[in-house]
């Protein structure tokens, strides 16, 4: 992998964002709207429950912010790819001396920068509006974030592979894939509330352990290393599968001429 080329591709995305007010606003718009919605729903529930759920604000807002990290990481890769398809620039990129791995690395790194900006803004807003301190999670925030970013990367790669195979007909998956796992991943509620069959599914999803771990830290101040280990192990599997699928689909795209069709259709 040539890091110089990766850097230039990242710079290209930065140029596109610098030139597009809509894209810049979008970094903040949806996460802020979600935070406002979830924040006030939570405050309302807490008021109705008359203090029966003392940590509800922390649980739900913490979960919402961490979910956004995963979602934005996945979107960073998939939308960057789709953007090149939409503006019919994909062939220009792959006719230049650019490897697939360099292209994916650039989309991920740029996605990472977007996640950083979004996360910081949400953390500040959550503190101002709800007195929720994301950094209450302390050092645990680092492994939580790392695991969510790896899963975002894996899901982004898997989504891109599917779009590469099925073309623009499958582009709705760019937004749908994260939400396919959300109900099972115990984002806003513990795994124990799910029916037994869904609990099995939940335990096969890496981010389940992150959200369970987050609630544990907020409730007891304890960081569960076993949760961390499971999340990391499953993430390794997801990422390996994602890379295998993308390489396989790129191969198939070359076999069937799909790259040209994606651009010239």
């Amino acid at each position: 992998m040539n890091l110089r080329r990766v850097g230039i591709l990242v710079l290209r995305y930065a140029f596109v964002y610098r030139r597009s007010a809509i894209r810049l606003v979008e970094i903040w718009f949806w996460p802020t709207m979600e935070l406002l919605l979830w924040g006030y729903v939570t405050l309302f529930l807490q008021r109705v429950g008359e203090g029966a759920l003392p940590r509800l604000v922390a649980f739900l807002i913490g979960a919402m912010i961490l979910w956004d990290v995963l979602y934005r990481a996945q979107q960073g890769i998939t939308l960057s790819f789709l953007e090149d398809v939409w503006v019919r620039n994909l062939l220009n990129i792959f006719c230049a001396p650019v490897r697939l791995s360099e292209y994916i690395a650039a989309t991920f790194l740029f996605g990472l920068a977007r996640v950083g900006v979004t996360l910081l803004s949400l953390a500040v807003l959550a503190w101002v509006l709800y007195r929720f301190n994301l950094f209450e999670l302390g050092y645990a925030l680092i492994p939580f974030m790392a695991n969510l970013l790896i899963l975002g990367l894996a899901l982004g790669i898997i989504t891109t592979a599917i779009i590469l195979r099925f073309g623009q007909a499958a582009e709705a998956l760019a937004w749908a894939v994260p939400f396919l796992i959300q109900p099972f991943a115990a984002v806003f509620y513990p795994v124990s509330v799910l029916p037994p069959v869904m609990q099995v599914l939940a335990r096969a999803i890496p981010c389940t352990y992150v959200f369970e771990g987050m609630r544990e830290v907020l409730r007891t101040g304890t960081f569960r290393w076993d949760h961390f280990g499971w999340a990391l192990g499953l993430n390794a599997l997801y990422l390996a599968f994602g890379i295998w699928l993308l390489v396989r689909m790129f191969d198939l795209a070359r076999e069937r001429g799909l790259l040209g069709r994606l651009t010239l259709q």
Partner: protein
Amino acid sequence: MHRCEDVVLHVHELTKVFNEIVAVDRVSFSISRGEIVGLLGANGAGKTTTLQLILGLIRPTSGRIEIFGKDVERHRIEILSRMNFSSVGVNLPPNLTVWENLWLFAQLYAVPRADERVAEVLELLEIAHLRDARTGRLSSGEMTRVNLCKALINDPELLLLDEPTASLDPNIADKVRRLLRRIQRERQIAMLYTSHNMRDIEEVCDRILFLHHGRIIAEGSPQEILDHFRTRTLEEVFIRIARSGEILVGHEER
């Protein structure tokens, strides 16, 4: 005959089959340094597939492609850094200015003194005044010239051009044809050129390959082709080839 050391692109028995449909059928040809070869054929004849095979975007079913004496499958990145491509169907990000787009591609191709090179190609295509315009706001003719700037940014030794004058008015199309001829003379770039505009082909190409159902059925200089088919214009040849199998027989007699 081409001298071996001058051959930039060598395609040997190239075949591509998609789901039992033969898109490219045992195609063989070479292009030498400084030569412009036209690839002609009706829609679906296999021109775009051939270009994409050469670019390594499609894997051949069988056959071999060598560029600069190296196998495309094994040395793709190294080869791509010395060649370039422009197609009427491919665009640059519309939010970026012409300068930004070209500068980024100059960096991707590791062009030394990228700023100077961008200014040079803009001058060459006579669009220096567009340097700060967003590409999304350009007319199709201007966009075509920006695409050509991108294709020339790394001073390629081999240039693949897919209908480069398709959306240009006759004046600009004429300028582009002259420019390509000038570049060929001055820099000895080898070019593979597809077009439906027979005037382009007559004026620009040294040699023509006619593709029909994925096969090369006629090859020669524009004049040789006209003499062979006893017609006055390449357009007549094109129409006859597209409509009948008679020509195929004619070619086999050559």
